[in-house]
Every structure is written in C-alpha cells, then in structure tokens.
C-alpha cells in the first residue's frame, strides 16, 4: 500500500470489526453510535475490539489511549465538566438527552462512539509510515 487509507475506508473496516465483536450487523452501526449504550459493548468487548483493530491496521494500540483519549480519564469533576462541554460542541449528533444532567467519570465510557475510534485511528495512521498499514 502506498498511501494511508482514507477516513471512509477506516470507518468501514472499524464498523466491521466492532460488528463482529458485538455480534451485530454493520448496518446497525452508525458514526454516532455509543459503543456502550447503542451497541451493548462491555469491558471484555473493548479487549476484543482493540485486538481486532491492531490486527486490521497493523498497529500497536494502547487501550487506555484509545478508549480514554477523547473523553479523558480524569476523575476531577471540573475537568470532566469542561471536557463534556467541549464534546457537546464537537458531537452535536450524539444522543445527549439520555445522559444524566451531571455527567460523572462513571458515565464517560458511554460517550465513546464509532467516530471516537475512527478519529483515533485516523490520527494514528497519519503518524504511522504508510508502508506498515
């Protein structure tokens, strides 16, 4: 391969891996699907998805970076509030109405969407030499 895959290609491949891990059809997966709330992912599934992505994109993926990178892992409520306010702007299509008014650290995994994963992969693949993809 001479160039890094484009975002759409990464999205399709990610959706396929997530669908296989969660035993759901790819057609049920959307960019703003919450892995936890919409697709039913549990902690064990995140392991499976990470392994699938590593194999698919020939990357070594830090689970912590992938799953916590966008939403952060801070337990400080002021930091979380600031991060959530940022995400409300950048994720207008997310189903915010089902989240509690005061989002705490415990709720953060619910904010991980397909786009969260794809954004991470796009960034990693841009950093990675194209030949390794």
């Amino acid at each position, binding site marked *: 391969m001479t160039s890094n895959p484009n975002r759409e290609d990464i999205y399709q491949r990610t959706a396929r891996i997530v669908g296989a*891990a969660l035993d759901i059809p790819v057609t049920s997966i959307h960019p703003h699907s919450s892995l936890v709330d919409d697709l039913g992912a549990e902690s064990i599934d995140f392991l499976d998805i*990470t392994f699938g992505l590593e194999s698919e994109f020939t990357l070594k993926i830090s689970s912590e970076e992938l799953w916590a990178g966008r939403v952060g892992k801070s337990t400080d409520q002021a930091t979380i509030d600031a991060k959530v306010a940022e995400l409300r702007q950048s994720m207008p299509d997310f189903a915010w109405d089902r989240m509690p008014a005061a989002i705490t650290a415990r709720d953060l995994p619910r904010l991980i969407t397909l786009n969260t994963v794809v954004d991470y992969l796009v960034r990693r693949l841009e950093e990675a030499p194209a030949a390794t993809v």
Partner: protein
Amino acid sequence: MRVTERRAVITGCGIVTPLGDDAVAVTGAIRRGESAVAPVRSFDASGCLRSKAAEVPQYEVRPYFRVPKAIKLTDHRTRLAVTAAARAVADAALPSSLLSSDRTGVVIGTSGSDVQIPELTRAIGGDLRAADDTRVFGERILGGLNPLWLLVNLPNMVSAHVSIQLEARGPNSTVMTDWVAGLQAISEAAAWVEEGEADVVIAGGADTGVLPLLFADYEQAGMFDDPEFILADAAAIFVIEERDVARGRGAQVLAEIVKPEVREPRIVGERVTVDIDRNPIDSSAIERALGFPLAAAAPVHLALLLAGAFGGFEEAAIHATGLNGLNATLHLEVASDSTRARSRESQLSSVI
C-alpha cells in the same frame, strides 16, 4: 437411611449426540444398527493412528444462546453444554421464575480445553526463544493472541456459560475428573439438592474428544491400540430438582437419584456400565454407535436409560471408570410419581 427429607429427582433431559437430539429417537437408531462413527470431519486426522470419530453434525447454536454475543467466548464443548442445557430446561418445562434464581445451580463434568492449538501455534510462530524464555513467550502470547483466548479456554467456562445463558444464579461448579466427571457432576447436583444448597440444579456432562491435541495425546498414550475406542462429542444435561419443588409445580418426574451408599457399586474395569434391577446390561452397542464422549459418556447412558433404551426399571445403577482408576456410580430408582420411566417399559426393549 436418609439423612434428610429433601430428595433429588430428575425432571428433564436434553442431549446432543452424533445420532440425534432426541433420546428416544437415538435409541431407535441404535436398535436399527446405525452408527455415527465416520472419518473425522472437523480436522485432518488422516495422519493419525485413528482417523474416525463420532462427531455431532454442525448445527446453528445461536438459538440456544440468550446472549448471542457470548458465542465468541465459547469452545465446542461449551456450545454442546449450552444446547443440551436449554433442551433439558424445555423438557422439564422449568418456569423462568424457578430457573433465574439463586436457588438454581449448575454443575457439569467435562475435560480440559483443547487450548486451540492452531491459534496458539500462530501466536508463537517459529520463534523457538519462546520455549526457553518466559518473557518472550509472554510477549508472543499477549501480542499475538486475541485476549479472549484465555476466556474461551478457562476450565470452568462450560458451567459458567450455561449459568449465564440460563440466568441460573445459584452454586456453580465444573467437575474435571476425567471420564467420571459427568457422573460425579450429577451426584454433586443431587447432594446440593438434598443438603439444601439448591432447589434445582442443571447437571450432566458435555465433552468432545474429537480434537487434534486429544488425538495426539491418546495416540501417544496407546489408547488407540483398542480398535473399538472411538472418540466422540456429545452432551447430556439434566434438570435435577428437589422432589417437593417438582411436585409443587406438577413437573414430570423421570427418576429419583438415591444415595450411593444404598447399593454397593459394581466396580468393573469397563468405561461405562449399566445395571438394571441389579442385573448388568450389555450397553456396548451405545459406544459402537455414538463413540466415547469422555466425561459425557455416562450422562449419555443415563439419558438413554431414562428414554427406555434398556426397557423399564425399578432401580438402576450407572458406573463409570476413568483413567487412573477413578470411579463413580449413580443410583436411580423409579420415583413413586415417576411418569416416564414406567411408561416406556412396554414400548422398548433392550437396545442390544
């Protein structure tokens, strides 16, 4: 003399065998001389000393999983167990209120995992340093294997997945005492019921010997010197219930499990034997037709016994002998309110 008034009865049975999934139909097939022994289909056994086995035909497991996502966490023997357990629950007409309870346990006998040799081999690759260097071995395993591999291969997964799929939240155990494990599991279930640990227990055996690693093991151990020793896969799971609980819901009662010390066990060197009304029965036709599914062998005999394979009985004993001299015996009596064991008496004679 009984220590307790609580009594364990069998109220349902579910099987998965290479000759079919209905114990009466399987009995009929055996009587007609049918056999499931055939060249191994699931892997290339052409280079093995034994290239035949009795395999359960491929089937759709999804309908038996309440949570289909969990299928990826299961190996073949766990899928057999979940399937047979679902059938047993249906046969017992066990209501969900009784099943999804912390008074309902699971205990199943099985063998160890096959460790999925192809996946393991691919992960380790040709790097021989892994043989001598634990750190290299760890890196290879952690880096090259799906992290779910361990969860598929943990020894207690058979009973764990049955309980997850059935939502049975009571005591849970997996018995891995070789060929006697399935029979021991059923005895354990009866003890739980009698001692008040549980009111209902899903118990039996689920196993497969049709795996590359086991074929290699058994060949090296000389087990294939016996031309009639054919490995197999199968599961036979039972609903074992406290008698008054079963009576209270109007359940069918197939037989009562009585305490082992009531009768002297007939210790013999054979793998599985059956006594009917204290007379030994030649059950070799079962093994010729279904092969020998290791820990599930004795439970399969029990399922066929309850289906009338040997005719009716007032009392029966199934005995299993494992490698290394392990023994287990299960004693049954027709319960006073048994509906099935008696009714089959006039319909079927011996399978021999």
